[in-house]
């Protein structure tokens, strides 16, 4: 089928305001969903689920959260990992301290806690921006790293500092096997992606982007910077909190504060820069890229080394990984700030005109 919107005339504004106005896009999304929900569980093995698919889904959710704040609202954050941690530890405490607390309830409460904390740490954004805001969010990271390590109540006085959860279930169905975990994370991600899409195409999304692009003009139109910025911090932290909960509960099962360190914050920021700032799709691209690249290099580099007769150590591979990330970040920041998502949409635009570019 030719990718084309010719002939697809919109007869109402409702039709024009659909999430995916182009018919082919709707089919593509449907195809991807069917593939992800039906085909993948049949095809993937346990390693795929544990090492690639589940981390990809959860980090996509987290990247979405970061993208709403950084890409859409134009605020900077180096504390994304901290908000994941707040979500994970809050969910943990709700889960073990409240009798009969269901998994999904704990995760959502974790998200709401993280949202509330996000609003508090978003307050500096009303006064400062850029580097100063980055430093303020960095403070959030250090504060929560410290809190979860030192305040024993958060970890239920576990002697090792590590916490764990088990016997997860959703409405009576177990969430234990890799396939079940995968499907659970996928369902959560689909719902959250839909919420993100709705917000970004609606009034609140326009407020965020207006503040990002030209804050004085936004104010003059009657957008209150305080409401726009703090709501972006809240929604972003909510997404990150739920992602943190999933990371701890579903992906790791048992975790320590180091799971949500500053490295994680940087990783999430890199994802949205490489994937595409201000693009829902870009969050997925970025997460996929960052999850898959190390695995790819692990396989490829030693093999390539063998070909030319050099043996590349594991340490060599991880050095190469860091250098490649660095180079890519610089490349995208300079050449294509809108990331892979923009490369993708440029390709689609070309395809739309193909084979008769006019």
């Amino acid at each position, binding site marked *: 089928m030719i990718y084309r919107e010719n002939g697809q005339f919109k007869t109402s504004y409702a039709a024009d305001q659909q999430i995916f106005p182009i018919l082919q896009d709707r089919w593509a999304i449907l195809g991807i969903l069917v593939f992800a929900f039906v085909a993948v569980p049949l095809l993937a093995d346990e390693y795929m689920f544990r090492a690639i698919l589940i981390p990809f889904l959860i980090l996509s959710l987290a990247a979405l959260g970061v993208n709403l704040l950084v890409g859409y609202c134009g605020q900077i954050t180096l504390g994304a990992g901290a908000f994941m941690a707040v979500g994970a530890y809050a969910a943990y405490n709700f889960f073990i301290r409240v009798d009969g607390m269901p998994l999904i309830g704990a995760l959502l409460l974790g998200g709401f806690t993280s949202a509330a904390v996000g609003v508090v740490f978003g307050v500096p954004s009303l006064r400062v921006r850029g580097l100063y805001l980055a430093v303020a969010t960095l403070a959030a990271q250090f504060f929560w790293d410290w809190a979860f390590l030192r305040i024993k109540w958060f970890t239920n006085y576990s002697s090792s500092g590590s916490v764990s959860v088990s016997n997860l279930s959703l409405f009576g169905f177990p969430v234990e096997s890799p396939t079940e975990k995968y499907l659970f994370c996928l369902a959560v991600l689909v719902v959250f992606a839909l919420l993100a899409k709705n917000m970004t195409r609606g009034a609140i999304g*326009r407020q965020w982007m207006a503040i990002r692009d030209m804050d004085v003009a936004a104010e003059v*139109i*009657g957008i209150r910077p305080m409401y726009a910025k703090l709501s972006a911090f809240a929604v972003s932290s909510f997404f990150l909190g739920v992602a943190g909960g999933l990371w701890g509960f579903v992906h790791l099962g048992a975790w320590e504060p180091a799971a949500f360190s500053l490295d994680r914050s940087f990783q999430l920021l890199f994802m949205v820069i490489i994937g595409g700032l201000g693009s829902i799709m870009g969050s997925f691209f970025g997460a996929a890229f960052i999850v898959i690249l190390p695995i790819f290099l692990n396989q490829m580099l030693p093999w390539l080394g063998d070909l030319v007769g050099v043996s590349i150590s594991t340490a060599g591979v991880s050095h190469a990984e860091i250098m490649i990330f660095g180079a890519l970040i610089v490349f995208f920041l300079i050449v294509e700030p809108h990331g892979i998502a923009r490369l993708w949409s440029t390709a689609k635009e070309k395809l739309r005109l193909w084979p008769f570019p006019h």
Partner: protein
Amino acid sequence: MARLIGEVILDLQNVSLSFGGVNALVDISFDVREHEVRAIIGPNGAGKSSMLNVINGVYRPQAGEIILRGEHFRQMNPYKAACAGIARTFQNIALFKGMSVLDNIMTGRNLKMKANIFQQAFWMGAAQREELEHRAKVEEIIDFLEIQHIRKTPVGRLPYGLQKRVDLARALAMEPQILLLDEPMAGMNIEEKQDMSRFILDVNDQMGTTIVLIEHDMGVVMDVSDRVVVLDYGKKIGDGSPDEVRGNPEVISAYLGASH
């Protein structure tokens, strides 16, 4: 023209504004009547833009008072001004660069959109209905300003003249009672200027919008405005009908003589 010029709705009294040592406005008083087109002229740096910024609260004057429909304000703030029905365009276009023309204009409806964030996130009835209603209104403005063909274009890709028009569209989307236009025709060619003059007069005529206009092109000012105030180095040196102002010797030496 059918419109009737009404009572004073906006009155600035003895407003002074300075930045460090620079006196941008010195003891300025002037009023705006309902439904009129009020022009502000003066050389570069005279304080014209600062005056608009005082009216809609971007700048806070150190002295003076702003009286809006009988209500006294020491200083405005942008949100209050927007709620009171004051819209504006900017001298250096201040569009939202990353958004489409349509989205830029839709932001102008912001104050009228009431659905909360949860309704929007779940795209519930209320949010969806509201989005459609306001889209319909925005499309009227798009038709009015003849920019149908670019509604989905990111504003950053538009030529200057069209950006100015989108800036106006966004302000009109607020359905303002008072519209502040900061050099809407600067940098335009003759044809674009004529279009823009026509739009401004139509807005004033058909919607009854009161207009405060900063413009350098004396021809345009004489054509469209009812009354003109002249600034020079932050001081008011003339105020009256276009003809009166044109005949004022002080104005001629300070401004007309100097730049034309």
